[in-house]
């Protein structure tokens, strides 16, 4: 077989790949494999949700009745994240339109891409700010996970000598073993917290892409980083699409 250097070998093509096509499709396959493992990771949390809801279904409806999760905030966050998915997809599209040769058109599309990336990151920060308000309200009210749960309107009974939590305390001091708000809020914080951590990481990575774009990187032959970060971001959106109704819209 002939030597490889007769072929087009741009500086952004790694030495172990023969063509950009091979490099780009490898990168994308690698990213999808990564998304697969992310899906399986979150599936564990959803399984914990299923089990908890199976055992303590009434707790979930009672959370709804007591208005302990703000549906307007959750709804707003859903719209914010969906919009950020749109801006991310549009950013990838701009990258696809950057010609390999440097000219005005390439500069224009690269700038558009950069702006869209920054908008995506800003929307993600809006999501996090709303989350911050939700979390601080819960901290104030006491609807916290596990041992830290101390919501006075819906208390749980903890046997001090053994550390066992036996259930919620109802009128007259009766203990209701089928009511476990401390577990609901454990689930709420672990699931939204893990999701939120992925949002934070996403903001960082998206801004890093914007920085690379500012340095003149990326064109329609070399945009797999943008596309693959886009895939990650859409996955973060996907998780929230399922998380929102399960947590906030229990009816």
């Amino acid at each position, binding site marked *: *077989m002939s*030597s*490889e250097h007769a072929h087009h070998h741009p500086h952004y093509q*790694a*030495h*172990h*790949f*023969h063509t950009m096509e*091979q490099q780009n*499709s*490898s990168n994308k*396959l*690698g990213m999808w*494999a*990564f998304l*697969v*493992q*992310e*899906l*399986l*990771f*979150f*599936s*564990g*949390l959803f*399984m*914990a949700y299923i*089990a*908890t809801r199976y*055992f*303590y279904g009434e707790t979930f409806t009672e959370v709804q009745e007591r208005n302990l999760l703000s549906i307007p905030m959750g709804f707003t966050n859903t719209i914010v994240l969906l919009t950020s998915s749109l801006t991310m997809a549009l950013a990838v599209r701009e990258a696809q339109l950057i010609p390999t040769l440097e000219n005005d058109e390439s500069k224009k599309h690269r700038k558009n891409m950069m702006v869209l990336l920054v908008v995506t990151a800003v929307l993600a920060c809006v999501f996090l700010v709303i989350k911050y308000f939700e979390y601080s309200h819960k901290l104030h009210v006491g609807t916290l*996970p*596990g*041992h*830290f749960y101390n919501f006075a309107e819906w208390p749980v009974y903890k046997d001090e000598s*053994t*550390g*066992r*939590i036996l*259930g919620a305390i109802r009128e007259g001091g009766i203990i209701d*073993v089928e009511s*476990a708000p*401390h*577990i609901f809020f*454990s*689930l709420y914080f*672990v699931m939204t917290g*893990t999701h939120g951590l992925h949002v934070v990481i996403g903001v960082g990575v998206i801004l890093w892409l914007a920085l690379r774009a500012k340095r003149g990187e990326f064109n329609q032959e070399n945009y797999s980083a943008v596309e693959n970060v886009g895939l990650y971001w859409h996955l973060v959106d996907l998780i929230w699409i399922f998380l929102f109704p399960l947590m906030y819209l229990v009816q």
Partner: protein
Amino acid sequence: MSSASSSAEHSAGTNYLNAKKGIASWLLTVDHKRIGIMYMITILSFFLIGGLFAMLVRYELLDAAPTLTAKNYNKAFTLHGAIMVFLVLVPAIPASIGNFVLPLMLGAKDVAFPKLNLLSFHIYILGSLFLVYTLAAGGVDTGWTFYTPYSANTDTSVISALAGAFILGFSSILTGLNFIATIHKMRAPGMTWRKLPLFLWAIYATSLIQILATPVIAVTLVLLMVERGLGIGIFDPALGGDPVLFQHFFWFYSHPVVYVMILPAFGVISETITINSRKHIFGYMAIAASSVAIAAVGFIVWGHHMFLSGQSEALGAIFSFITFGVAVPTAIKVCSWIATLYKGSIRWNTVMIYTIAFLWIFSIGGLTGLPLATLATDVHLHDTYFVVAHFHYTMMGGVLFALIAAIHHWWPKMTGKMFNETAGRIFAIFAFISYNLTFIPQFIAGTRGMPRRYHEYLPQFQDMQFLSSIGAFAFGISLFCVLGLWIHSLLKGEKAPQNPWGGLTLEWATATPPIEHNFEEQPICTSGPYDFPEIDVKEPMAAK
């Protein structure tokens, strides 16, 4: 498969080992061969440490009276199990042999993501440091299975162990991800899926399991950490949780992970058995397909670890039924290998002795799985030494003998040296005999009722336990002999020819040891990997 060109004398002796010098050139390398060697050394070191804990366990069990306290004994078997499973068996063949051999066998310059490969290695090291910390902090006594509620409440250093295992999981995931992309996208021209060496089919199936199953243990360990730290109440019944749920979470990964351990071993055997029988593999498509089938079916049998846990009996029956199914593709492999031997021209070298030893050991392991898969008999055998012997035959015996076979087999390619065949054969037989002496008495003790994880036991089990301990000490000695063989080879071994075993896969078509970027020119795959004896390979190793 042939190569377009063999790399003749490269510039006087430059290869991947001496191309760059200094410790930084190893720790920061992106060369898959160096990464594989570093994994191998680290994994074997942890194997030694895990083995020391095994010796401690076997020392305790020499006689019926206790030597250690119960808690210390619990720590000993926990650390033995956790180190062996997470630090040794899971990465053993894929990370060391797989990393070294995969790109060479494919005819590629490296894996798809070399830097990610290096990151995987360093993540492995980081995870292992957490386990080392756990040792220093007094160990953990929950069993490697971390069952709740005990693991949520014991005062030993559980969180650091969980964190270590969590981090190690990512090393495994990233390696699997890398291998999938490499096998899909970087095969040599002409290497269709049907010409892929079976070792690579095995690695491929393994990698699929790694990316699908490992994240579930990751989330399980996180939930357990949060259970311990915050009392979230998912797994601990004292807080309203369900301990059987923990077991579902745990075994959803931990059953497929045994296939992560054994599938690469199967792949090694496919290679070594053909090369040393000078014969085409029997049932290539069956073996390739069965690797993927084992991976898939392995995901739907996890409840057979939970027959006595409080799991629904209806579900137990379903899991039992499906578990019989997963034995079928494995049996297909074993029968195909034996059929490969038939009318072969068998070379009884060290590698072949380990290979045949594997067939014996794994067959026993597999067959003893059947009474465990059967719900009714498992009621009596669960948590006895029968189970311990079963999984040591499949996991330890299977993986370890295949790993040792693989190291011997690719030793010339990795080091450029040969080892002493006579000593190699003797140590192989010694290892095989002492191994069986260690574990067959455990089957017997188990059927008679000896429970596992007990530091003292009734006098009627004394003779079997004594034999087992003697076997274990002898087996340990045999492994040190093998280590000595390798060190002797490094220091004084004769120079290896390019293709000492007469192999037809692409790794044998390049320099021994390989140059840094593997091939002088892109090789082309023109024939199958096992086209013996039609292809006459020049310069096979001189028969000894």
